């Protein structure tokens, strides 16, 4: 009886440790487990210091917003909240994402808090033409005569989608009707080159650029509409101000803060290594969470005038 009791006691003592041997793993590869500690260590080595600073900055922004009595209302956050609920199942992870989104929205509020209406108007006077957005259609055709025919049809006032669908080469252009969205001339320049941007701005050309020879045919670009009014461009102006002020604000917050962490004090706790950085696959792997659903304008961290590349990216020449 005494030996049975000893055995039960011994097994009971071992059980918590035995559980570790059969702990659920984060992944298994041909039966070989990748456990939570291993994944955590690799993530820390890959991006740990950067993520740690981001979290520190997040706390500083939330504190500063609180000090300035700035907040994000339920209505302002509703869209993001729903998006996070739809995409993130783990509650702890969802909370982290929520805090980060909230911090970015609050940082924007901090940065535009003292931006007067008069200054927005003055910036509009100076940079209105560069910030205006234009509705752009683009089509690539096989030959120059066909491209000239497209130009003629557009000049006569034919619907651009119809012209594109009747003359385009690619399936993608057929589906979209050639619509590229609303772009400013900087984005047009980046996507198709300065020649196209310049031709679109030449009043004698009737808002049509081309034919311009490309590696895959002849390009014609058409400008059908422009949003250049003050209210239409106001958001872009605020973005400009936010982007220009952000680096200085972030530097002031981080450099003035009392940040204490074993990871930052001891280089061996978080060594710098490129072992877990960079893409190892030449393609985008499945299941990767898309962050495009979150409004890019509010969450953009760095100034960007680079639109997504299209198949007609002029840099091919």
């Amino acid at each position, binding site marked *: 009886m005494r030996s049975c009791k000893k055995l039960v006691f011994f097994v009971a003592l071992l059980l918590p440790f035995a559980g570790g041997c059969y702990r659920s793993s984060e992944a298994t590869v041909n039966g070989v487990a990748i456990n939570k500690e291993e994944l955590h260590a690799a993530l820390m080595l890959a991006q740990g210091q950067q993520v740690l600073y981001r979290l520190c900055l997040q706390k500083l922004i939330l504190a*500063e917003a609180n000090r300035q009595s700035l907040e994000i209302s339920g209505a302002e956050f509703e869209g993001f909240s729903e998006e996070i609920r739809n995409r993130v199942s783990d509650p702890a992870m969802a909370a982290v994402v929520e805090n980060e989104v909230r911090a970015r929205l609050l940082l924007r509020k901090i940065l535009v808090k003292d931006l007067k209406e008069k200054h927005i108007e003055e910036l509009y006077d*100076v940079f209105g033409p560069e910030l205006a957005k234009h509705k752009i259609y683009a089509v690539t055709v096989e030959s120059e005569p066909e491209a000239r025919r497209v130009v003629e049809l557009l000049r006569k006032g034919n619907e651009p989608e119809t012209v594109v669908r009747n003359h385009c080469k690619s399936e993608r252009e057929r589906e979209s009707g050639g619509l590229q969205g609303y772009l400013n001339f900087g984005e047009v*320049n980046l996507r198709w080159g*300065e020649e196209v941007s310049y031709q679109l701005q030449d009043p004698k050309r009737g808002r049509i650029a081309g034919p311009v020879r490309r590696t895959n045919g002849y390009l014609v670009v058409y400008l059908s509409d422009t949003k250049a009014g003050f209210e239409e461009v106001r958001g872009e102006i605020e973005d400009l101000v936010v982007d220009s002020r952000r680096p200085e604000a972030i530097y002031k917050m981080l450099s003035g803060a009392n940040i204490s962490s074993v990871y930052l004090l001891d280089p061996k706790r978080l060594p710098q290594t490129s072992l877990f950085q960079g893409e190892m696959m030449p393609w985008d792997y499945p299941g990767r969470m898309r962050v495009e659903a979150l409004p890019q304008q509010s969450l953009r961290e760095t100034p960007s005038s680079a639109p997504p590349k299209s198949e007609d990216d002029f840099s091919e020449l």
Partner: protein
Amino acid sequence: MGCSSFFSRWSGTALALFLFICPPVRSEDSPRANIEGQYRKSALATQLRFYDGCTSLRHPEFQLYSPEGERISPLLLRQRTIHIFRSAVSIKEDARVLSFRKIAADQMECEVTSKLEFTLVGEFLKSLILVEVETRHRDIWRLTAAGWKLFRTDVVRQSQSKKPLSLALPSHQIQC
């Protein structure tokens, strides 16, 4: 910590001063006034890290040449400029026209001196480095359907200096 207070100097005083003394460029201005206005606009765009604003003065066939006479690729120029915009904590540019002459009915030539100042973060976020780039360049402007545009820049000479800064950021008032 007053984030909004240290911006008031930029938004309240500097921009107002810039726009009062240097009003927006108008097509009816003389060529020199028009061109000098465009340099000021480009300098403001630099301070705002607005690349498209910086390049708004360029002719579509704009050419840039180094002091050695080598043509600099526009893509390389863009990459370097965007890199500075992304790395700098603060940034400021000033351009002054030293001389101005008409070389053809639709062409003007200017001798210009530009100073670009930007601050970079030092180690452990506890220090700043001030970088100053001074450039003397000769510019040719052409009259186009869209107004005066910068057609060509020849860099005559360029110098760069770096020095550590105290923790306080330098005051960046816009000057005309």
